[in-house]
């Protein structure tokens, strides 16, 4: 069998993969999200989750929060490439383990089943700021706010308890204290 004949270069040693949360402040202009996401896809960087919304209607600034994994070299390239884009104002990079940053994600969980199953489901999410948004005699819609990994665990545990539908926002981040990222 002939070996594959076209790659660009033999890859060097791979570094360790880290999870980073990249926050980008952009002008809220047409196509800016396509531009940022296109950068990730065209250079082969991963997007594990994405959260975006306008945060300053007067200045038309949106804040995009992307969770990505990569070696330190790749993460550095992502940041530099993002900074090159014309509508980008600033780029922040937080590691998942950073204690000075708050990370949160919200999820809506729909659980269908009998009373006891639903009660068990709500109990399983007790630690995570449970809010019951909807209740019928067959179903319940639960809102929880937690870290990404915790929501991963909850959805896994709720599957046997009647979880039929999950809607997640993706992680958002905010630094602790009074300082604002420049």
């Amino acid at each position, binding site marked *: 069998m002939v070996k594959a*004949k076209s790659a*660009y270069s033999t890859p060097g040693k791979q570094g360790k993969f880290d999870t980073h949360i990249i926050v980008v402040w952009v002008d809220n202009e047409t196509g800016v999200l396509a531009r940022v996401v296109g950068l990730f896809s065209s250079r082969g960087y991963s997007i594990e989750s994405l959260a975006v919304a306008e945060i300053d209607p007067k200045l038309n600034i949106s804040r995009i929060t992307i969770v990505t994994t990569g070696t330190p070299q790749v993460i550095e390239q992502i940041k530099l*490439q993002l900074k090159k884009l014309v509508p980008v104002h600033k780029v922040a990079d937080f590691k998942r383990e950073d204690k000075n940053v708050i990370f949160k994600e919200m999820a809506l969980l729909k659980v269908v089943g009998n009373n006891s199953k639903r009660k068990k489901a709500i109990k399983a999410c007790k630690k995570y700021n449970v809010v019951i948004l909807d209740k019928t005699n067959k179903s319940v819609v639960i809102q929880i706010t937690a870290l990404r990994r915790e929501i991963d665990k909850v959805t896994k545990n709720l599957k046997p308890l009647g979880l039929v539908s999950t809607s997640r926002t993706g992680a958002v981040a905010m630094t602790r204290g009074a300082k604002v990222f420049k």
Partner: protein
Amino acid sequence: MGKLYSGAEIVFKCLEDQKVEYIFGYPGGAVLPIYDELKNHSSIKHILVRHEQGAGHAAEGYARSSCKPGVVLVTSGPGVTNVVTALTDAYMDSVPLVCISGQVPTHLIGTDAFQECDTTGITRPCTKHNWLVKDPKDLSKIIHEAFKVATTGRPGPVLVDIPKDIQFAKAKYFPPKKEKKLNGKLLTKFSQKDIDQLIDLMSKAKKPVFYTGGGVINSGPKASQLLRQLVNLTGFPITSTLQGLGAFPGDDNQFIGMLGMHGTYEANNAMHDCDLLINIGARFDDRITGKIDEFSPRSKKVHIDIDPSSINKIIKVDLSIVGDVAEVISSTIKSLKKKNLNLEKSNKQKISKWWEQIQKWRTKKSLDFINSDKLIKPQHAVQRLYELTKNKDTYITTEVGQHQMWAAQHYKFDKPNRWMTSGGLGTMGYGLPAAVGVQVAHPNKLVVDIAGEASVLMTMQEMSTAVQYSLPIKIFILNNEYMGMVRQWQELLHEKNYSESYTAALPDFVKLAEAYGCVGIRAKTPDELDDKIIEMINTDRPVIFDCMVDKEENCFPMIPSGKPHNQMLLGPKDQKENKITGKGKTLV
């Protein structure tokens, strides 16, 4: 109430305020209002091409030979998709280009209208930035912003998409904001500490080498002058990438030749064995580095670049200096003079041993070839062309392939902005329209496109443009009836399986030239070569020169895929010892 202008008028007012003299374009339904306005602005001349890709490449040739942004005007739909190749080429080689495209009226966008396409979507990855104008009030601001983005920092292509109704709609005109005379350069980001570190490394080095690239050319002619001063001050050897040729005189003794996949033996060995590598305006492209983990293994590396994302992208460096090349070199020269470090004298001892080694490598004469008196060898043809044109301040463009490498190896440049070639994207068909653009920028100079017969057929239609505007470009075709570079790789890697690399059904280039209204000249033997070249130079009309060369000649030296710099193939005799195996085959 300020005076109101139509969108089309605003476009021209912007171009006039940006001091644009030439637009390269092709009309169409979606840009009719702009073409209608053209007659009212005699300071801007329109060059009608025959294919929008030709417009893009012509604008590139214009931009690279004149240091001004090239302007392209195309219509919607197929007009835009035809120019995408040229935009991607400009993006890869950092050429400042402003492309204005028409678009269907705003109320028809998204309805699959006639000649509609998602212009901003398609050109998003291949431009520095692009805009879709939705409000005529924003038009002048956007066009001025487009010029600024295209020419500041690392130059690149931009696109402004203007729907047809916006071209008719009336709005006020806003002239460009008067910025401080930055000349398109970024505010300096580097510090004196960086310069001091660089000088410290230079004073300790025993085997230093300068590795320069397109960044020096992009920075302007001043950067090349400063580079020469620095090289003379330090006495270090200097090598250049394909795009950097001309920044330093090619026939100077301190220039050790182009480096990379088809670079000289001495340049590649110097890169491999050096202990200090100073990268000025180059990007460690894979054609240069070869096998990455064996690239220049024992050297300290310095990277001077205007684009921070280029630094540490592929090769990790020890000292990075972000800034415009001219400013960094100027700071370095000032600091060197202040410290009174006459490196050339103090380092002479250490460096003279290094120069001895380089001289030894030079004796290999890696660019030599077996000449013939029966067949024209392509390297010989380029050498003769060089000898007969070197005193005329000639501008050279090329297509892509073996002839491009031979042109880079055997034609020596001593000034910047004289060498236009598609490096990053490697677009066949670049040279002919680029020559048109160069001739438009320099009407009284000799412009030669060194071409291969396969490449030149891709954009041959632009000969009509040359004839229409009396642009006496010379298309010097090294005709070997093969796609030379592809055939060479097939010979070396794929056991001579010459699959689809033979250009069959070639036209008779002399008859083709006459059909277009130009002059056709053919050279078949080495004896008639010089006379025919002189005839070509003295013809004041566009010329297609069919130079029939040896069909089986290969381009050496060559760093075969998967090998590091110090294991090059030097010629047919070397091949038997250096077979390419396994992993090496997967590299392009």
